[in-house]
């Protein structure tokens, strides 16, 4: 990477910091839209991170990406089986999934600690990537940055412009009615949970292969929880999740940059600022109560047992 000016390097850092949040959050958004609350995002991210890292060591980061997704899906299917088929409590099972994921990832990763990983390369398009400023920002990121944005757009489109999206939202809003209409509530939810698991795994893989190419225990450092909060504060709307993720990334990076300016702002305040700003901003843009209520999946977290 060549030398950038301060502002450009800040912008590039913001993009990298926001991408894992966006990936995890957009997945969880689909899960919650289908009426399931999976609090295990952090655990699925950790397992995605370690599986991606390990696979990338042997086969390179592009294969690692798929391993990360697969690991997230597998773990989420365990959650789906427990909560959807065995109708266990979603909150408790989700919390347990986080603990399980963090534990398992530590176990799998014992041999990977202290090993430098394979880093996902930034793309380079001749001429375009060389444009000053715009080049590195728009044509010089790693593929997952573009993928996360495309995925957000795709989720928005599918949820609100297609029949599939309508079915997912119906299942999340009133599983009894959806069931009565003949839609398979449980299969739809299984698919959504798996999608969310894949996204969380991918977000973890982004951490261990693009953000900081290494594996260490607990490297997710709470990002799964931030993603969960983003979904709620964005009132389950993909566009707002993207805004929230980037806002969070922006304020945290600016908080770091401001520290060296000698303004004497306490660093503890700067550290908490991303949380405060993001929540306040998203609450303000969700000012329309009726709209927020309309977007909240009415069956969120409720178990579904079809009556026979």
């Amino acid at each position: 990477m060549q030398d950038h000016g301060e502002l450009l390097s800040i912008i590039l850092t913001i993009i990298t910091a926001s991408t894992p949040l966006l990936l995890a959050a957009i997945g969880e958004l689909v899960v919650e839209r289908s009426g399931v609350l999976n609090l295990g995002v952090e655990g699925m991210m950790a397992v995605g991170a370690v599986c991606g890292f390990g696979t990338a060591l042997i086969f390179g980061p592009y294969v690692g990406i798929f391993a990360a997704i697969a690991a997230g899906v597998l773990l989420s299917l365990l959650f789906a089986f427990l909560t959807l088929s065995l109708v266990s409590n979603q909150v408790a099972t989700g919390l347990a999934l986080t603990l399980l994921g963090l534990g398992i990832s530590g176990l799998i990763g014992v041999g990977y600690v202290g090993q430098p990983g394979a880093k996902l390369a930034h793309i380079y398009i001749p001429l375009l990537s060389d444009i000053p400023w715009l080049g590195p920002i728009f044509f010089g990121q790693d593929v997952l940055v573009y993928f996360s944005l495309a995925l957000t757009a795709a989720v928005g489109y599918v949820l609100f412009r297609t029949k599939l999206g309508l079915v997912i939202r119906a299942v999340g809003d009133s599983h009894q009615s959806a069931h009565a209409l003949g839609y398979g509530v449980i299969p739809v939810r299984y698919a959504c949970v798996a999608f969310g698991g894949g996204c969380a795994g991918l977000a973890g893989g982004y951490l261990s292969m693009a953000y900081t190419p290494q594996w260490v225990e607990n490297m997710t450092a709470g990002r799964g929880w931030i993603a969960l909060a983003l979904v709620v504060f964005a009132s389950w709307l993909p566009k707002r999740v993207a805004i929230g993720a980037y806002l969070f990334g922006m304020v945290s990076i600016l908080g770091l940059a401001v520290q060296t300016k000698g303004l004497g702002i306490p660093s503890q305040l700067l550290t908490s600022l991303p949380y405060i700003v993001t929540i306040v901003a998203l609450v303000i843009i969700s000012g329309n109560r009726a709209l927020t209520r309309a977007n909240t999946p009415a069956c969120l977290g409720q178990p579904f047992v079809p009556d026979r």
Partner: protein
Amino acid sequence: MEKEFKMKKWIVAAAALAVGVGLLTASASAAKLKACWLYVGPVGDGGYTYQHDLGRKEVEKELGDKVETKYLENVAEGPDAERAIERFAREGCKIVFTTSFGFMDATIKVAKKYPKVFFEHATGYKQAKNVATYNARFYEGRYVMGEIAAKMSKTGVAGYIVSFPIPEVVMGINSFMLGAQSVNPNFKVKIVWVNSWYDPGKESDAAKVLFGQGADIMVQHTDSTAPLQIAQEQGKLGFGQSSDMIKFAPKAQLTANTDSWGGYYVQEVKKVLAGTWKSQDTWGGMAQGMVVLSPFTNMPDAVKAMAEKSVADIKAGTLLPFAGPITKQDGTVVGEKGKSLSDKDLNSMNWYVKGIDDKLPQ
């Protein structure tokens, strides 16, 4: 009838065997000294806890047939710690090393209940008859790092990523700066507090921002290898922390300030074996082998020679990083000429030396 009798015989035999095996293992473990370690992080953190665990393994290697070692990792500071330490004491550990500052009160409390068990608490300041304390003078390594940074930097600016404003960390910043100023009086340092010991993502963000702001050398008092990896990626330089991180940044790491607890642990366990263990406060540095700078790399021979000389001088006691007089940021002067600040002053350090622009969070 006979069948039942046979069955009974079998059971008796099995029971006897079980008791016998139990006795055997009991006697075997009685002959071995149990030494136990309590860790705040996972042994796989590749940093602070990892280094303590290397020390434990060294004890096992050196005194293998005489000791049995145990450890508990990822123990939160607070009530969990107290339970864990008590469990160690009940399980027959003769010496317990509690390796994080936050284990201090729990250690003292359990030590009162178990006067026959010896406790050693790292980085704390409370002692008792059966509680010793130990720490390493990490600042010695940071002084040499400062000298190297001032020689190697083209922009004359280092980025410094730090966790929390505790004396240990402040001491490190000051020592680094004093070392740098001894080479280049106008050397600047840009400081970013990330309020975490360990968050690879955030540490790498901070490194990117600092490099963007004109720093060309990265110093960290956080535990992950992320800042060094960024340095490597951007063709800049940096220093490793806690353990040798050269594998992560073969072209960027100048040296790493590593903790080396093995020698101390072996010595202390040997004392218990010999019955000469006593409570004391150990604050060892380079001379005692507790602070070790990993091989000097990515620098010209002249800089390397300077660094090696400084290390030798610190070991010999002729170079004192905190020799007075030292001008504080606010302009007041502390310390006597040619004498180091006292350990007490160092351990309560809450001020910056002159030349640092950051405002110290209080």
